[in-house]
């Protein structure tokens, strides 16, 4: 069972690295989005530093949306999903393995890139650690919730956009608590800590819901 789980993770990571277009493209989009923002807002360093955590989170959210369509669609189109459904591994766990691989190749690179992009926005060095911490806690929820949208639209051609529309409302709590936990606002004592806890709760709820809902959606799509 464990061997099957690990082989799915390994395969998906290897495919994402070899084929490209996944994590690399998301990071590149992240870079482009963040470097465009100061041009639009103007060179007000104080303002940029103040809104930097929010900008970084929004850009990260959009970047991770870009990669959702390849989570299940490629496997659906070439018939791999049929065989994955027939394994000894319950589909919920197979889906979890794919979500882990997705996070490793998209979420993690984005989190690593975030502090460097923070430099572009004049983010204070004191904010680096809270930002990276909040993103590490929050980005798994993006992959977990995104999987639901990706699974629902797996049989739709060019379903990526539809998946994004479905998923964005569920990303809102991650965004709100993520920005609060990254903490540009230090006026309320303990607010940052509290937001991080709530962000963790969002991730844990997604961990319970995501694989089950995504597996159910995949089954419904395949069996129709």
């Amino acid at each position, binding site marked *: 069972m464990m061997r099957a789980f690990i082989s799915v993770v390994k395969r998906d990571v290897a*495919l994402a690295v070899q084929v490209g277009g996944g994590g690399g493209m998301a990071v590149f989009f992240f870079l482009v989005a963040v470097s465009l923002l100061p041009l639009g807002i103007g060179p007000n360093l104080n303002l940029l530093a103040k809104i930097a955590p929010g900008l970084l989170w929004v850009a990260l959210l959009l970047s991770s949306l870009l990669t959702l369509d390849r989570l299940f669609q490629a496997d659906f189109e070439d018939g*791999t999903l049929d065989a994955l459904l027939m394994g*000894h591994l319950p589909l919920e766990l197979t889906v979890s393995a794919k979500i882990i691989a997705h996070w490793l190749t998209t979420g993690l690179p984005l989190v690593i890139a975030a502090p460097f992009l923070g430099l572009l926005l004049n983010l204070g060095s004191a904010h680096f650690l809270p930002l990276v911490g909040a993103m590490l806690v929050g980005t798994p929820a993006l992959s977990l919730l995104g999987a639901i949208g990706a699974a629902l639209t797996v049989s739709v051609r060019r379903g990526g956009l539809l998946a994004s529309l479905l998923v964005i409302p569920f990303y809102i709590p991650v965004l709100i608590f993520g920005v609060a936990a990254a903490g540009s606002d230090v006026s309320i004592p303990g607010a940052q800590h509290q937001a991080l806890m709530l962000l963790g709760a969002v991730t844990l709820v997604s961990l319970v819901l995501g694989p089950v809902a995504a597996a159910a959606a995949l089954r419904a799509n*395949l069996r129709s």
Partner: protein
Amino acid sequence: MTRSEGASASHPLRLVAQNLVCQRGGRIVFRDVSFSLDAGEALVVTGPNGAGKSSLLRQLAGLVDVAAGQLRLEGGVPDADIAEQAHYIGHLDALKAAMSVRETADFWAGFLGGTEADVERAFEVFDLGALRDLPVAYLSAGQRRRLTLSRLLIAPRALWLLDEPSVALDAASLARLVGAMEIHLESGGLIVAATHQPLGFAQSRSLDLVSVRTVVEVQA
């Protein structure tokens, strides 16, 4: 994880389908399909295009819901559904262009629970040894087909569901496939194959799916 299969099970295997009904997209594809298949037997499903050959195989594989009727595999692994004891090889080849032949086989061995020796045997039977380091992108249609079919041997499973397995295979490869199927039957396995061209087995039964699609609208 290894599981006993075929001849080693306490009771001989028997696949039983009773009055199967298949409904897809709100239309009845076929109904009242019944057959039973004992260990060591092959069932060749024939019928015109659209008769539901592929739908029947997908139903057996658990990939299409059984609208009505019964389907069971007697004497198999307890607590495992048919899908877990079956290989389904459909029209799609389930291959990734970026992976090499070796990586593809290793993945399926890892996922389905096969050993290194199983992979080597599958490569030998389907003559893939010389191609092992080649990315799938550079394989010909027949070679891709052979790699897809090698999944049958990479992890031993009792029931083989083959949808047009001979597509794109040359005469030599077809002989290799038929050889593998005969060995599978001799060891107590079961095969259900949908095909237009005769595969040339000695012992096989046939099921002709008469088209019942003459617009049977579903009752609301």
